[in-house]
């Protein structure tokens, strides 16, 4: 189950962060997302270590905490997407697929002429769409 997704801007500021848990661990998830930026930085600054293709946006597993797995994704405009999940065996293609759909949703959200680039995303449509994607991620993983 995905417990948290986040969009992080250029200055490593959160543009959108949403947790999907009933438990009261939002702050902990915020900490996890924030710390994962360190790994993103490291991956981005030392691209050769990742061994991935030049234009690869999917950063892979950033770090496994005790209960969560954190995945990252870096768009070509250097906006970061972070995914925190409690599933311990996640297939990479699922995550990639999730990020692709999430990216599409993000692009649609920021293409809104009333959205000011660099500001938080407050669109309700975006939030709705994200929660749909999050829900369907669970389904895909089950299938």
């Amino acid at each position, binding site marked *: 189950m995905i417990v948290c997704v986040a969009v992080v801007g250029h200055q490593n500021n959160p543009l959108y962060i949403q947790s999907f848990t009933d438990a009261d661990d939002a702050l902990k998830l915020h900490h996890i997302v924030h710390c994962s930026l360190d790994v993103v930085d490291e991956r981005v600054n030392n691209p050769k270590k990742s061994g991935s293709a030049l234009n690869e946006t999917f950063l892979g597993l950033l770090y496994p905490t005790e209960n969560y797995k954190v995945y990252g994704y870096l768009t070509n405009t250097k906006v970061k997407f972070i995914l925190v999940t409690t599933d311990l065996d996640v297939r990479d293609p699922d995550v990639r697929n999730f990020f692709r759909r999430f990216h599409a949703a993000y692009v649609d959200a920021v293409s809104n002429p009333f959205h000011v680039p660099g500001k*938080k995303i407050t669109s309700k449509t975006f939030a709705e769409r994200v929660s749909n994607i999050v829900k369907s991620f669970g389904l895909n993983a089950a299938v």
Partner: protein
Amino acid sequence: MEDYPEEMRSPPVSLVSVAGCPDLHQTISTHLHSLQPPINTLALPDLSKISLLLAPNPKDDQSSIPDSAASAGILKRDWLLKHRTKIPAVVAALLSSDCVSGDPAQWLQLCSDLDNLKTVIRARNIRLVLVVVHSHSKGEFDQIGNVFDIDDITEDRMLALRKRAEIDSKYFITFSQNDETELKQSLHRLGSIFGELANIYYRDEGRRIKARIEKKSCSAVELQVRYCFKASLVAVYAEFRRDWVEAIRFYEDAYHTLREMIGTSTRLPAIQRLIEIKTVAEQVHFKISTLLLHGGKIIEAITWFRQHNASYRKVIGPPEAVFLHWEWMSRQFLVFAELLETSSGAIQSISSLIAGTIEKSLTEWEFRPANYYQLAAKYLKEKRSYLESAVSLSETFNDSDNSTDSVVPSLFVGQFARLIEQGNAFLMQPLTDDEYIHYAISEGKRFQDSIEIIALLKKSYESFSNFKVQRMAALCGFQMASEYYVVGDFSSAKQLFDGIANLYRQEGWVSLLWEVLGYLRECSRKQGQLKDFIEYSLEMAALPVSSDTGGVQYSRKECNPAGSASIEQKELIHKEVFELISGELSLTSLESNADLRVTGVNQLHLEIDLVSPLRVVLLASVVFHEHIVKPGSSTLITLSLLSQLPLTVEVDQLEVQFNQSACNFVVNSQRTLLDSANDDQQSQRVEAAPSLSLSQNRWLRLTYDIKSDQSGKLECISVIAKMGPHFTICCRAESPASMGDLPLWKFEDRVEAYPTKDRALAFTGQKATQVEEPDPQVNLNIDASGPAFVGESFVIPVTVASKGHAVHSGELKINLVDVRGGGLFSPRETEPITLDSHHVQLLGITGPEGEDESNLGADNIKKIQESFGLVSVPFLNSGDSWSCKLEIKWHRPKPVMLYASLGYSPDGNDSTAHIVNIHKSLQIEGKTAILINHQFMLPFRNDPLLPSKIKPVPDSDQLVTLPLSETSILVVSAKNCSDVPLQLISISVESDDDIGKLCSVQNSGDQSDPEPLVPGEEFKKVFSVKPKMNVSKLMLGSVRIKWRRYAGIGDQPGSAASLVFTDQRLPDVNLELSPLVVSLECPPYAVLGDPFTYYIKVRNQTQLLQELKLSLADAQSFVLSGSHNDAIYVLPKSEQIVGYKLVPLASGMQQLPRFTVTSTRYSSAFQPSSGESTIFVFPCKPHFNMTDVGDRTIESLAAAAE
């Protein structure tokens, strides 16, 4: 890791025992220890002592105890230690040769000792080595391996000895120590044999146990324990042999069996069973990790650890013992972190490792010990919280008895027992689970987990910081600081939180920042730091906590002391702060236990600068509506305040401060105006505003006019807001044009208004304006009438007229600048450095009429250079005027820019700040007034032959050639090329003194009353020049024209304009003696039909006879008598005259017959010009019936022609 005993931490070392010959023990043990791998030595002074060491204790012996007893535990606590320090693999009996070859009594003793030894060691399979030591005194030595050739000891003895010991001959050696090499060799042999035997011993032991495992590989639960135990024994034996691979294999075997036992074993009470298994697992795991890391297999080690962690994390155990589980987990992480840290130095850099591990899904963090430290701390925290609940539980229904005192670790690893004293003996009694938990809780209470947690986090924090992993470090720091907070070390906590808050501020993580600020706020509350408390509270209240994230409710556990981030909470904080500020509330410090209040004594003043996080609380933008203002005239200034505090804030007073303190003013809100009316702020300007209330995200705009009398920059420094009687916020003023975004709020999707209503002003407005100099109220006039002429000293009057200002200490500066730029005033190198070097020269400045130079005071400055002048202007009252005249002389025609600047101070004091400057400039053209031309002519009908004309010499082309001793005519013309009429006074040729001897220049006459020369008119004057002496080059001097501007008819000459002399040098002339002079003579006119004579005279001026050819062409108007062609000879220094008689046939201007004279000697021909050979023919004899004068005129004309 230090908690583990030494034998766990380091790889095992083989142990051998040497008995007998104590004097050799030191040497042998040192040698064995230095071997690779080292061997530890257990030294016994006597053979008989070995039985003490290995005192058969059959109950303890693993091999002999029954299975049921063995299954009481998994691993004996001291087993490893025993093998490392007590049970040798090899026993070496050192027998001195004296003993061996001694008397029968000695021999018997030896034999019995040997027998004893044998029985002792056989039970344990310990290998035996017999060493016969040769004493020094014998002085005999033998070859190595040639042990039987010793004359002392008979062969029989030796054989008997070997047989008795029942050993192979290989293990029966002699040890000689006679000299260094011998000793070395003996030691070496001893060492290799020991190594070999130890290896054999450990291998056999391992095999033996392995065989036993395989034999009994049934599925009985109890046997699993045994199996596990054996497997680890095998591994240890393998380790003794340094067979790491096998050791790891068996350890892993043991580990897996152990894991399976969790569900199946029923030996002990549940809790203790789990504890035991975990403890053993921990040790086995530790061994595996150590071995893996030692082998440099860091990736495998980490993977193994992950597996270890995964397989035991869920094995929490019964609820009352949960804290033990977390403690155990924490220890796992701590130990692994320490292992990783110690070994990571040895292995290659982490980054290179990571490169190959992506596919194994290991991430960067897992290579960092810091990560494990942090997790260890996390689990320790977990343990603490469970322990606390366990403690509170146990306290409620357990009255403390002393039963825990006697609990000690039992024989087996991970087991505890109660020690009961029964007489002299101690008895181990198993515990029940309740008793054990009780014991564990009381043990747990003794430790201060917080200190441990802080230490762990600190390690992690420092490590992450060193790697520049700042966010992770911040998280560790945050946890560490909150731990400090829990412990009560507020200053440490605050210091850490401050650093972390900076990171979160920078990156705009509001939720995290809220958390940190909440802690900081409480820290300062507890420390009684009022100012900090208010600052943090204000910042919290102004954080962009949006309503829709309010759905996130933090649990009580992780919530910070300030509550969860929500708008309601913000408002609460806001209210609390403002109650504090107004003095209604007080802050109770924990440390000093005093009430802190904002009072008159304890005033509070906050500074908000451009980088302060409190900018969100109050932002002051100040803009002047104009960039430049005149002094004394007022301009508008807009003061805009913005606050993001959730509730409306009432400001009582605003004080606006400028760099010119005279401009400072105070704005009072209407509300407080009445109260402060009696304040003695008379000196300062006080404005009133209807309301000074700031609501969230709305600019409060106030516009006032402002006036400055002082020129220079006027800048707004700060705006001080006063809220309540004792609280002020000083806010640094910011220009809207360069104002940075509000931190944190810039990411929010909010309505952004401009600080001023005028958009343009919001984009370009500045908080500073330039106050101009006061307007000069003095006129500076430069009058110039038309262009200046070269040569004249041109006078330019300059007038300073005061219109309103009195002129104090005025200074007039004059500057001449070339309009086109360039080297106007710099002398050219070719020109001599004279006054002429300046093409335009400032000659002088003369004061007004009647004022003499001597009248000027000593302090008056007057400095004149060629292009620069400085003159002081005397004091002028308002309305007065003063003028001076500039005299400027042009040497070349050039346009020139004249700059005049007047600086003065309008009031009497000499402060330079009030100097007013006026600048005027004027372009003045310098022109040539008179153009002088000249022309040389020969006398009429008189032509000397000039040889240079015939053969032109290249370099003399430029010069005019004049015949020597002949009179030539010089015509000088002066043309007025200016725009104004000029009066020509005289034209003269000025020659140097010595020229007079050489030639005579005569004026043809003088003008007595010169007429003005209108523009464009030309005046000519004729001079006759007669060179007298034969010089090749003659300098004729220069033409000097005296002129002046024509000032009208009525004017007296000389009064209006001074005379100007214009000189022009005449070019040098060549002089030449002409060999032949041809002149024509004919009457001035002719009458039709009247014959007249036309003479051609040729004068030979040479010493030679000249042959000339003369030819005459016919002319149709004349009848001619005389030969057409003739050759004549002219004698030296004589003249030949040829005459022709002519009768004119037509009247009017007629061309005389053209003649040509050709000189054969000079091969040159001469033909007079048509002008020379023209004559007017009257139709009849003219009758001049006028007066005599007419005749005379004609006669004189004719005479002149002659």
